[in-house]
Structure formats: C-alpha cells, structure tokens
C-alpha cells in the first residue's frame, strides 16, 4: 500500500532540513536558532499527526511504503513503512523531541551546535522507527549515536566525558552484535536479502542453530539499549550527566528502540529463538524490576533515582516480551513503552526544572518544597503517582496488561514481579516525602521560583496524554491491535 507522496521521508528528513537551515544562521542569534528548531520539530510532529490521520487502523500490513533501490550490489533498499507498532513510536518521538527542544531553551553554551546535533538525533530516531531494510535500520541506529555522544559529552554535567564515552562504546559494542546477526541472516537467506519483511517470511525456515544464534546476538544489541539487567550500568551515568532534554530523549525514545527492535526484528523473525530464550528473558525482566526498584531506593541523587526507576520499569517490558504468546502482554509492553516514555520523560523534565533553580539534585538537600512551589509539586507528585502505577494513569494500564498477559505463562515469576509495585511505591513516596513534604527551610530555599509557563507548557501534553491513555486506552489499543495480533501469529509459526 503506498501513498500519494513520500510522507515518511518527509517526516524523517524534516529535522535534517531544519539542521541545514540552522547551519546557515549566525551562531550568535540564539533565539532565531531556537525558534527555527522548534518550527521544524513542530512541522515534523504535524506530519506525524497527518500520518496518524491517514493510517488505516484495521490492518497489520505496512503502510505509507516507500521502496527504492539503494545499493543494488547488496540488494539493499531504501525501504520504509509503518504499522501499528511504529506509528505510536513515531508520535512519541516527534512529540518528545519537540518538548525536549522547548525545554532546551536554557542552553546557552554553543547553541547552534547543540540544536544541530539535536535535529540530527531526531532524524536518526525517526529513521529507526520507519526503516524496513536492515542496512537502513542499522544506518539510522548508528546515526543516532554520534550526536548523542556529543550532546552528552559537551553539554553534560561534571562527569560528562566518562558518561558519553561509556554510552557510546557500550552501545557500539551492542551494535556490532547486531551487525553480525544481520550478516548471518543475510548470507543464510536465499536469495540474499536485507528486506525485513522478506526476512520475516523466511525466518522460520532457518535452522534452529541459526535462529538461536542470531536471536542471542540481536538480543544483546537490543538489551543494551533497553537496558536489560545486567547491561544497564551505562544508563544511570548517561542519564545523570546528560542535559535535561537529552535525559528526556534517552529515557523516552532511545530506550524504546531496544524493545521496538525486539518486537520488529528478533521476535517475529526468529520464533525458534524466542521459544528457546523466553524463560531467561522473563527472569532477567523480573530481576530488573525488583533490583531496579531496590537500587532506586538507595539513591541520593534525584536524577539517578529516576534513572534506576527506568531500569525497573523497562523490566516490565521484558517480562511482557517473554510472554510472547499473549497479545495482552505484548500490548502491555507497547503501552509500557509509551507510558514510560511519557512519564519518565516528564520526570526528567521536572527534575531538570528543579535543578535549574536549585543547582543540586541531592534528595537530602531538599524538604518541604511543596510549600514554596505548589504547582511544581503538584506536577511532580502527579507524575510520581503515574510512575508507581496509579490507576487512571497510563502506567497502570500497561502494568496491568503485562501482568494479566504474562501471568498464565509464568505465574510464579509474575507473582514475584508484582512485589516490584510495592517497592516502586516505597521509593517514590520516600522521594516525594523527603523532597516535597516536611519542614520548609526558608533561609536555604526561599529564593526558589515557581515553574514557569514555558516549562508547564512543555510538560502539559505529557500529563494530558498520561491521563488520557490511563483513562481511555482504547484508541491506542485499536491502533496497535491488528499488528500485535499478527506478531503473535507470526511467532506461533
């Protein structure tokens, strides 16, 4: 099914156009550069909304397909298309990018370079979610890394260089596994193809050994991105050192690429592999949930706490992915990806807002902030509640779907992972209490100012979406339904 004009290319390359425009701007004109970035990411978002409008919800077939020869010698194609799992991710990416750009207005160091890198990053992220060719996918996957490295390494906190190199090398390490896996599949397929859809058709015909081997390699690559315990240690460093906007993007979009990759590539393509590895994957997920929650509890730095909570929350996704036979679990996984993107994105944003004003993130340094900053506190408490899975917020729907989907397959493991809910409540409430409640130190924090309109505006869409999905998840459910049901069918081959 194709479309009258190459909408996907427009979406993916619109940030690149913005990048070109910014390159021609005077580097001293900070506000022009900012507004141009806002404009182009806004246009990108509008285009994704157009995509949503014209998307056919009833089918799992790829839509808006664009296919051109790219490197004929390799049979690599410029092949893009979207289905029910990439459309939500595109929307999430374009929205979060816009918000991150708006929240980056307080960057004053080398503004031009910052936004150039940021738009390149956005292009890479969008590209990953629409690519249907392995080479193209890999290309976008790597394109993203470079700006990320600079964004953390130049604009980050005190240990930014360490964090940036760690992130870069760790992810690159994973990418190499992915490349090997892609090559194995490429040479195993006859005729050689890099087309993901073709490969999905061919997948089950590969021998057990190949499937298990490539599955494991893909899994390492994606698991580092997610990150799955025990590959997670780059995450706290990168999140903590990165500037606010980049933390948002890291948490909201980059982590989702791991799970997206699993849902798009390894799961439906290599059914033998998932069957072979499903139990270990669930175990890793359960460990991540409990372990992430406990480690969060011990954190003294607000941002690090949120970072470890990400580890814990992504653990739910792994539990869901392990229960591959259940469409409920996979839907829960998608819900969790989106809701974690919204909630943790907002949490990082709000922590950044506080850090801008207080210049510290140490939990013990605060207390009673709720008295001085009621609006900020209300927002933070709301997202904290969303993060601990309060019903009426998106996090609850996703956790519930995951539990209900995975429980029949792994009653004991899911039973253990439910404990994570209480632990999450415990560390979140501890944080809320120690930062916002209690006696207010007027001498120390009397000068704090309330969250401003721009920041409220940036966080408002996240809050509204969190509530909307939490109260009425049906639209999102319908959007993904056909695709997820198809994926479950593919895995049953």
């Amino acid at each position, binding site marked *: 099914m194709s479309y009258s004009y190459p909408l996907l290319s427009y979406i993916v390359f619109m940030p690149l156009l913005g990048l070109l425009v910014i390159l021609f701007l005077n580097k001293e004109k900070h506000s022009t550069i900012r507004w141009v970035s806002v404009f182009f990411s806004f246009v990108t978002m509008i285009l994704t909304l157009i995509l949503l409008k014209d998307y056919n919800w009833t089918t799992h077939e790829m839509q808006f397909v664009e296919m051109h020869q790219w490197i004929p010698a390799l049979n690599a194609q410029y092949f893009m298309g979207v289905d029910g799992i990439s459309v939500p991710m595109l929307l999430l990416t374009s929205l979060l990018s816009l918000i991150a750009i708006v929240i980056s207005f307080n960057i004053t160091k080398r503004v031009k370079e910052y936004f150039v890198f940021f738009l390149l990053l956005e292009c890479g992220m969008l590209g990953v979610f629409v690519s249907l060719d392995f080479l193209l996918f890999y290309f976008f996957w790597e394109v993203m890394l470079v700006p990320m490295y600079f964004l953390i390494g130049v604009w980050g906190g005190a240990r930014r260089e360490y964090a940036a190199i760690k992130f870069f090398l760790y992810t690159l390490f994973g990418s190499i596994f992915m490349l090997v896996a892609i090559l194995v599949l490429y040479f195993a397929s006859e005729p050689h193809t890099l087309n993901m859809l073709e490969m999905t058709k061919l997948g089950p015909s590969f021998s057990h050994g190949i499937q298990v081997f490539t599955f494991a390699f893909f899994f390492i690559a994606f698991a580092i991105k997610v990150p799955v315990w025990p590959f997670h*240690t780059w995450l706290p460093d990168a999140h903590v050192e990165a500037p606010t906007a980049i933390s948002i993007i890291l948490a909201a979009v980059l982590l989702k690429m791991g799970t997206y990759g699993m849902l798009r590539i390894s799961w439906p393509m290599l059914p033998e592999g998932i069957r072979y590895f499903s139990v270990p994957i669930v175990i890793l997920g359960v460990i991540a949930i409990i372990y992430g929650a406990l480690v969060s509890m011990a954190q003294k730095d607000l941002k690090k706490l949120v970072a470890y909570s990400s580890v814990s929350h992504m653990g739910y996704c792994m539990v869901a992915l392990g229960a591959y036979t259940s469409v409920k679990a996979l839907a829960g996984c998608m819900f969790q990806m989106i809701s974690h993107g919204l909630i943790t994105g907002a949490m990082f944003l709000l922590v950044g807002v506080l850090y801008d004003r207080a210049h510290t993130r140490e939990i013990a340094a605060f207390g009673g902030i*709720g008295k001085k900053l009621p609006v900020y506190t209300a927002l933070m408490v709301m997202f904290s509640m969303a993060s601990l899975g309060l019903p009426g917020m998106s996090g609850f729907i996703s956790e519930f779907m995951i539990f209900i989907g995975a429980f029949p397959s792994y009653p004991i493991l899911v039973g253990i992972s439910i404990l994570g809910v209480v632990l999450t409540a415990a560390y979140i409430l501890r944080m809320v209490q120690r930062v916002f409640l209690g006696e207010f130190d007027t001498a120390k924090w009397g000068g704090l100012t309330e969250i401003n309109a721009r920041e409220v505006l940036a966080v408002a869409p996240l809050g509204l979406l969190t509530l909307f999905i939490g109260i009425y998840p049906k639209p999102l*459910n319908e959007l993904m339904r056909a695709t997820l049901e198809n994926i479950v069918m593919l895995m049953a081959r």
Partner: protein
Amino acid sequence: MLNNTFIIPLLPLFAFIVIVFFTRWKEKLSAGISISMTAIGWVLSIITMIQVVTHQGEHAVRIEQAFDIINFTGFRLELGTLLDPLTAVMLIVVTTVALMVQIYSLGYMHGDPRFSRYYAYLSLFTFSMLGLVVANNFFEIFIFWELVGLTSYLLIGFWFEKKSASDAGKKAFITTKVGDLGFLLGLLIMGMTLGTFNYGEVFGLVEAGAISGGLLTLMAIGIFCGAVGKSAQFPLHVWLPDAMEGPTPVSALIHAATMVAAGVFLVARCMTIFIASPEAAMTVAWIGLITAFMAASIALVQNDIKRVLAYSTLSQLGYMIMALGLAGFTAGTFHLMTHAFFKALLFLGAGSVIHAVHTNNIQEMGGLSSKMKTTAMTFIIASLSISGIFPLSGFWSKDEIIASAHNHPFFMVIALLVAFMTAFYMFRLCFLTFFGAPRDQEKYDHAHESPKSMTMPLVFLAVLSVCAGWVGIPWLKHGFSSVVYHGHPHHVEANILLMIISSLVAVSGIALAYLMYYKKSISAEAMGRRFQPIYKLLYNKYYIDEIYDAVIIQPIYWTARSLWRFDAGIIDGLVNLHATVTIWLSKVKYWIDVYIVDGIVNGLGLVTGAASSVLRLIQSGRLAHYLLVILFGLIVIGFLASSNLLNWAFLEVGIH
C-alpha cells in the same frame, strides 16, 4: 435515576476539576462548589434509593452499563456502572457522610492556608469512593480502590510540614499497597481462569464451577487481601491509627465511615466467591475476629482520643468482616451502614473537642460537657449506639452480627467479649472527656462550643445514629434485609434471648467504665499496675510496628543499600574493568608500536627526510617556475605521443 447512576460520581469530579483549575484562589467559592456538588449527589442518591426500594419485580434491581477501554480478541477491559441494592445503600452512606463532613469542615478548617486544596481533595475522594461503589467489574473497582488510597495519602499528609503526618501518609499508602498486591494477584488468577472481570460473569462462572479447589481459594484470599489492606485488618492494620495525623473530618470520612469500609463492601460484593470457597470464608471470619479482639483490647488503654476511635473502628470493621466470613451478608452491610453514621459522628465530635482544647490527649481534658453541650450530647448518643444500647441503631446491627455467629460458639463468645470491651472503652472516653473535674485548667478555660457549621452535622448524624438502624428492626416486614440480601431474601428471626444478653454485656461495660472513671471507686492506675505486662503490651499495640520495622522495613533498606553497592561496585565495576583492561592492552600495544613497528617506520622516515632536504631546493615557491616546468613537461609528453613512443589510447580519439 436508575439509568443514570454514573452522574453521581462525576459530580464531585467536576468539583475537583473546577477547584483545581479555576477557583482555587477563592476559598469560599471552592468550598461552595464542593459542597453543592456533593449535596446534589446526596439528593440523587436518595432518589435512587427510593426507586430501588419501590422497585416492583421478582428480583432486586440490577442495572448495568459499560463501555470498552481495551479490546483484544477474547479479552476486554471495561468501565461501567452497576446499580443494585448494595450499591444504593453505599451511595447513601457515602454521600451522606461526605456531605456532613464537608459542611463540618467549613468550621474546622477555617483559616487554613490550603483551604481550597482541602476541598479539592475531599471532592476527589468522594468521586473515587462513589466510583468504587458503582463499579461493575473488578478491574474498575481496582482502579478506584487505588484512587481512594491516593486521596487518603494526600489527606493524611495534608499538613505535610509535620514529619509524622507525611510519614503516616506514606505508611498508609504502602501498607494498603501490600494488600492490593494480593488483590491484584486475585485478579490475575481471575483473568487467567475466567477471562473476564465483570461481576455478573465472574459470579456466574464461579457458581457454575468454572474454577474450583486451590485456585478458587487462592483467588478469594487474594481479593480478601485487598480488603485486609484497605479495611486495616490484622496484619495490615498498622496504618490506620497513624492515619489519625490527618485533619479530623478526614478521619471521620475516610478512616471511619467510607474508605475503610470499602474492604467490607468488596467482601460483600464477592459473597458468591466466598460462599463457593468455605476455606476462604473461614479465613475471612478468623481475620475479622482477631482484628476485632486485638483492636478492642488496644483501645482500652490508649490516651489519644482519635487513636481510641481508630482502634474502635478497626474493631468494628473486624466485626463486619467476621460477619461476612460467616455468611452474614445482610448483617455485615447493615452494620457497615450504621457504623458509618455513628463512627463519623464520634470522629466529628472528637474533632469538635480537639478544636476547642487543642489537644488529643484525653488525660488533659475533663468536664467539657458543661462547656460543649451539643458536642457532648451527640457524642454520648453515638457512644451508646456503638455500645449497642436499645433502641439505637448500633443495637440492631450489632445484634445481627452476633446472631450471624450462632453456629460458631467460640466466635459468639469472643464477639460478646468485644462488645463488652467496646462499651467500656467508649465510656472511658466519654467520662474522661466530658465529665469529672477538668485536669488541665488552662485548656478548659479556653474551651468553647464549636460554630454552627460544625454542630449542625453533629446533630444530623446523631439523628441518623439513633434512627438509621430502625430500617433493620427484625419485626419490620419490608426492612433492610428484604432489600439488601444475597441469594434469596431471608427474614431475620428476632432472637430475644441474644438481644437481652448483648444488652446486658453492653450495660456492664458502661457500668465498669462508670465505676472506674466517674465514680473512681475502682482505681484505673491500680489496675494498670496490677496487670503491668498486659498493660504495657496493649499500650504498645502488641509491638507490631516494631516487629514490622525490624523484620521487613530495615531488611529492605539494607538490601537496597547493598544492591546499590553491588551495582556500582560489581556490575559497573565489570564494565569499567573491561575498559581498564582494554586501555592497558592498548598501552602494551602502544609500546610495541613505538619501539618496534615505529622504529622501522621511523628509519624509513629518516631516510626520506634526508633525501627531501636536498630535493626541496627545487621548490622555489614561485608560480612562474612551476608553470615553466609544467609547460616543459607538457611539450615533452606531446612529442613523445606524436612520435608514437607512447601509445596512449586517449590521444587517438578523433583519429580515423
């Protein structure tokens, strides 16, 4: 009204949204909106109740409406409303108490800097509680279940500057969350085995035997765990006494009348499941009994007026749970209703007292009846009611509960003992607070009757505390039991003997309190000294908080800290070790490079350098020289080409 039940919960939600976004700067307006919305809800609830009662038909009213929110092949989640007699009763209870508490709060919270926020929270709570009541499936009830927990957290920690308040909020939230885990597990089992959460479908399947044996028991106990957490039953009761840190009207609404009764409501809703699983029902009864007894015994010795009431609440909830466990559906729900009224009254009365003397300690009060006539009168009425004195409402409902244990002598004996203790500690409270000589003259002098906005709800609730029970008088033809029943309506037989016994027990409890605290003919101190170990045990609430802290909380913190060290040290250490090894390896390679590989290369470089220092003389840097050489070269090539010494194909182009 029967088809539009959903409006009732939405009214307070509307109030919440309006207050938060529009009127939070205007305190009076915010309160007005909140109260008027609840009042409308109250009127609508009464209309609903009348329609339910006058409904003609073979079966009781049962109206269900729902819409999907998640829909996969073979799996649906929905939101909806279910209206049946139980719902109608709960609607009345919740809206009545909420309305009274909101009016009362006008006076009690007067001058608080977060007045509007208080009303917003109350509205949100009312919404959640009404939503919980009208839910038509387990998924939805779970949603509202957690939402009431949230509002409870917010309201307990309303004065969050106080560390004890925010601690109490956190404790309440997490403790109930532990119970909710069980609830969630029960739901998961339900989802796995039955594939639906709708009440009607679930109960139908359970009755048809679609699930049985261990799984059924596990599911029932799981659901009951939710009730244990929310209704603060043993062993998750520890949060409720601490929750008294919240404003007193909140304690009245949430922690006495409505939210804590949600557990009872849930068990009542799931009666079918518990009937199908006798083991689970027995567990329920035992938990209820233990809680009732334990809480009543603790209440005997507490000195904080609100804590005494809190333990009393625990004990009464234990009563209801026990009745439900013994299949006394009507008894449990009936007591739920009457208890809501008189316990709300007790709390509001206590609030009025605290408002007057600014202390919670009953040892610092005394003789207040002369200064606060209305409060004292209503408080004593409520005390009589809870003690079970004829013909107040507590008498009828408590009697039914004790009657429901008629097949289990042990339960009945303990229940009577609890009734005795209840009467004793309630009147200990009354005598210490309102009678005798003032023990703190200064506080006594400042005491005064509360404003009208506070006393009016007291009077109203006092009337209800007297009369609400009359709907359940066994001799009535169309009483409570003919409307709210499980399975088939059964007429409660009046058991005159039991009535007399329980009345005697109550009166003797009051008499003992009278002797000890009014007449002082039996010295309370002497009793305390004589039973020193028991006294200490009770005074320290059986040391359960301390045990939890040592056995659960500290180990969790310890695990968290050690895991964090493990994470930073070992896991991240491995990553960094890998980096270090790589760097070390590369240093080795660097050495090899510099001294061996590069040695050769440098040798070559040296030779090249020497040669070029000679050749560089050619470089004059002048364009003209270079061009000359170029031209020379060009000409030489041209000649070579033309003389066929070089046979380059490209020079042949055009030649034929």
